[in-house]
């Protein structure tokens, strides 16, 4: 597994754990009124579970398993993917802060811009890695 995939997948596991902690605390608040201090973090839970966990895991695994393009060296694409990693995690953190009423709401927009930029960079990279079977290859798909 490429190093950047390891970081993306492990970061997604940490986002999953952190998001699940907040989700469990929120559910306990709904049931028993515990952890009232975490009520304003519902947006953080949603941001971490959808973008931090699912999107990041898929990006990490896709970079690992999609067929390699001939035109782009692994070093070049790895550099782009480190930028994706940084933008995505910074985006989740900043957007999560933006969902908390005690922080400026503009942070949500800034975080989402970073997440979208990460998605565009990843899509641009992964686009070139979708390839048909070569002509003449005899393949039977069952």
């Amino acid at each position, binding site marked *: 597994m*490429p190093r950047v995939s390891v970081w993306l997948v492990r970061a997604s596991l940490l986002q999953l754990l952190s998001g699940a902690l907040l989700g469990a605390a929120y*559910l306990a608040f709904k*049931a028993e009124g515990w952890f009232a201090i975490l009520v304003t973090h519902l947006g953080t839970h949603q941001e971490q579970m959808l973008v931090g966990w*699912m999107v990041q*895991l898929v990006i990490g695994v896709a970079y690992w398993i999609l067929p390699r393009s001939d035109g782009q060296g692994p070093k070049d694409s790895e550099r782009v993917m480190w930028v994706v990693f940084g933008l995505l995690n910074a985006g989740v953190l900043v957007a999560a802060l933006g969902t908390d009423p005690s922080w400026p709401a503009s942070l949500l927009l800034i975080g989402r811009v970073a997440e979208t930029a990460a998605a565009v960079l990843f899509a641009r990279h992964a686009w070139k890695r979708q390839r048909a079977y070569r002509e003449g290859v005899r393949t039977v798909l069952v």
Partner: protein
Amino acid sequence: MPTLTRWFLRAAMVHLVAALGLGLVLALPSLAAQAGAWRPVYIHLLVVGWATQMIFGVAYWMFPRIEPLDLTAVPWVGWTCFWTLNAGLVLRAACEPVIAVRTAPLAAAGTTVAAALQLIAVATFVRLSWSRVKTR
């Protein structure tokens, strides 16, 4: 495909059908007033029961292994993850809509236990997967 993966994937499909069935029921105009109480259950059946559980199953199968898969061994951590995730989701589906509309101590306790079970499931999955995510 390991037995645990098959259980994860089949349970994921059950949750998918249950989630979409619930979504269909909640869309009925006669149930519009109750839909709010059931919405978190619908979302979690879909996102946790279906998508996350599918990921857990496939990751357990496909992530690089430190040691070859021993089909005779019982992966206790993996089964703990499976049962806590599914018991937590079912318990949540049974209790959370109740506490959304009225005070019910038993349902509240059930919801709290469901929260703990789902958290245990996630923690066990992270423990199971962390060391398998590595460079060659």
